[in-house]
């Protein structure tokens, strides 16, 4: 859906938390580049860093 066809929300919520929280949207879940300490730690443990 594009901006012209996306329905406007009729129930408004106050947003909390990080607006860039990881989520799946659209017709398939794309996982965008995301760096977390967990990944870094694991790579350190595996000697990749």
């Amino acid at each position, binding site marked *: 859906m594009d901006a012209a066809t996306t329905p406007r*929300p009729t*129930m408004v919520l106050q947003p909390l938390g990080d607006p*860039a929280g990881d989520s799946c949207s659209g017709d398939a879940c794309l996982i965008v580049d995301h760096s977390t300490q967990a990944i870094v730690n694991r790579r350190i443990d595996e000697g990749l860093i």
Partner: protein
Amino acid sequence: MNESAAPATAPVKVDIWSDVQCPWCYIGKRRFEAAVESSAIAVEIEYHSFELAPDTPVEYDGTPTQYLSERKGLSVPQVEEMLTRVTDIASSLGLDYDYEHIHQTNTVKAHELLHYAKAHGRQLEMKERLLEAYFVTTEHVGRIDDLATIAASIGFDRADVIEALESSRYLPDVKADMNTATQYGIQGVPFFVIDGKYGISGAQESETFANVLAQVITERDA
């Protein structure tokens, strides 16, 4: 008696829109559970249906890698890199995603099963079982027979589940959840609606979830 103020001890209502085939939803579930435990704030959780890919066929012969590659026009190596990233994050939370053996499928019947479980007071247990089935044990979650087997594994009556799913008894509830998601403007999952007033998009870090819960309690008491 002040009937307009919620009692201080009333649990925080958390409505979560989620799909069984959403990798961030399972990750978000674990992070939220950790936040609830660390904050010691009472919550009442209810899951709602969100179909990420409603036109996916029940029987799809390829892997999620092939599905994403075809649907998004990405190369297989690009998709594999993305899936490795989310698998690493899941693994850090004790979730062993097995993308090589996952059955890409349509999830509407899985959502109907979640509503069936809700009607029997066991939705949370079914949600965990279905996520585990899809991502970890790579069971098929699109076919009625397989879903009945999954339900029976946690004590539900197999024949009753089959009847409920074949009759599509809970399909209106799935559609109602999708309609509510539209009314809230929800376009991605997981999506958390807190006390019907606040919205949190995505699998936030546990600390963020805990801070939000604390903020909600504070604003209730204000």
